[in-house]
């Protein structure tokens, strides 16, 4: 059976060119970048070259990039690192109700540690209420953290508006750009961001590696302690193959961003149109245009998401309900709740996230399969 992968928001296949780029660093150029001998200096050079490549994707300077083990660690470092370092100035943080668990659970942890967090709501499309955010600001607010694009519904936030406010008030602004980087243009200077999280495995790079952009001059402290790596902000022997692969992925993403995002937007809109046209009581979650090029979050009344997901899986199609991270949870998605869906509608939602290798034929097959699956499950449903 041919398998069709449409869960690129969960993770992506590593690009063969990326694997190619990584290979020499396992067995030949395997040095520890802190070693003074030629094996080490070779590694150190690759490290700095990679830093430049990653910086280039977001228009940052290489010195502003700290490599981490992934998006989750980047979010933890940004939020805890700023909170602890600036706690004398204040202990108030502002975020949104639709953040990734890496942000929400870090905030929840800080609440237990004596910080206060305000969760700004979003509208029915998942767009943050900037006026409410502005109202939430207090004298002791030290950090605003609002994601660039949502991982479930793909909605893109008005980042520039938020950064303007944060700049005016002298508050640090972090954005989790794990889903947006490589898919839509991200220019940290233009967007006015102080800290920005990236994850390699979402952009056809390897898993287990990511980065935090930290604007020069930002007061932040490390959360992992040990050797003097990464400008003392992230201890641990550098994962050079991972970093080189991540860097290659950023370069590839940069090169094809314009073409890919245009193509994916078309494919996405085709998918959405075909589904909405051919399946009764189906709806799009999230903003129709202010959304990631590759995200279609669809809602089907009277049926449950996991049942749809597994039925599609049996037809060789991989999609997700909410996010991969919360797949073990039985709670309806906090994002879909936040945009005002009733629980039963939240339960009936599917996230289809396209990737650069998906084709029109695949979209057609997925739509046909969905028609089938939804019909079969509705036949069984007492709610119809």
């Amino acid at each position, binding site marked *: 059976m041919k398998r069709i992968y449409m869960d690129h928001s969960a993770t992506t296949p590593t690009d063969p060119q990326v694997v190619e780029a990584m290979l020499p660093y396992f067995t030949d150029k395997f040095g520890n970048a802190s070693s003074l001998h030629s094996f080490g200096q070779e590694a150190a050079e690759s490290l700095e070259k990679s830093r430049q490549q990653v910086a280039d994707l977001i228009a940052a300077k290489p010195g502003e990039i700290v490599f981490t083990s992934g998006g989750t660690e980047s979010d933890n470092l940004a939020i805890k690192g700023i909170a602890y370092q600036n706690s004398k100035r204040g202990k108030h943080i502002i975020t949104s109700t639709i953040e990734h668990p890496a942000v929400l659970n870090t905030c929840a942890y800080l609440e237990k540690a004596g910080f206060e967090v305000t969760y700004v709501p979003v509208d029915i499309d998942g767009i943050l209420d900037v006026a409410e955010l502005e109202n939430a600001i207090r004298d002791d607010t030290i950090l605003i953290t609002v994601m660039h694009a949502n991982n479930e519904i793909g909605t893109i936030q008005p980042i520039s508006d938020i950064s303007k406010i944060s700049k005016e008030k002298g508050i640090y602004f972090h954005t989790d750009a794990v889903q947006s980087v490589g898919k839509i243009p991200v220019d940290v200077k233009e967007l006015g961001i102080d800290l920005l999280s990236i994850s390699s495995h979402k952009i056809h790079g390897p898993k287990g590696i990511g980065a935090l952009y930290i604007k020069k001059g930002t007061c932040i402290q490390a959360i992992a302690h040990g050797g003097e790596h990464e400008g003392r902000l992230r201890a641990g022997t550098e994962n050079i193959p991972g970093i080189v692969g991540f860097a290659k992925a950023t370069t590839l993403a940069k090169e094809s961003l314009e073409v890919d995002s245009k193509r994916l937007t078309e494919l996405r809109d085709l998918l959405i149109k075909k589904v909405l046209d051919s399946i009764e009581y189906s709806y799009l979650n999230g903003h129709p245009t202010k959304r990631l090029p590759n995200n279609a979050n669809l809602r089907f009344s009277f*049926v*449950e998401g*996991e049942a749809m997901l*597994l039925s599609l899986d049996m037809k060789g199609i991989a999609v997700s309900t909410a996010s991969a991270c919360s797949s*073990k949870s039985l709670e309806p998605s906090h994002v879909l709740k936040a945009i005002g869906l009733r*629980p039963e509608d939240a339960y009936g939602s599917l996230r289809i996230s396209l990737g650069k290798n998906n084709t029109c034929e695949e979209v057609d097959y997925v739509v046909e399969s969905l028609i089938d699956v939804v019909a079969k499950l509705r036949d*069984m449903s*007492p709610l119809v």
Partner: protein
Amino acid sequence: MYSEKVMEHFSNPRNVGEIEDADGIGKVGSPSCGDTMDIYIKVKNGVLTDVKFRTFGCAAAIASSSMMTEMAKGKTIEEVLKITRDDVADELGGLPEAKMHCSNLASDAIRAAIKDYLGKSSQEEN
């Protein structure tokens, strides 16, 4: 994640549908909790001669419903009432911890249907 048996019942659920002139109907769960189950029974001489279901829910809920109807069909009311909450899960080759409530739900649903039948028939007797 799921046993083969679960996946088999999920993809080919037995006894899907309603019974128009059911002798008893059990409705449990709620859509806002993510699963609801309706079970219909036909009873003759104390034996469940037909059992059908409609379920809104995850694969475990659908498989549990299907398994429950199979287990109940042809059995006496007494025998069916002896089927415990865990029996459905056991017959399915186990369910993930987080999904055990689906097995419970199926057992609750058939009990509700029997109760409905017993209530009706005792009314008829009166």
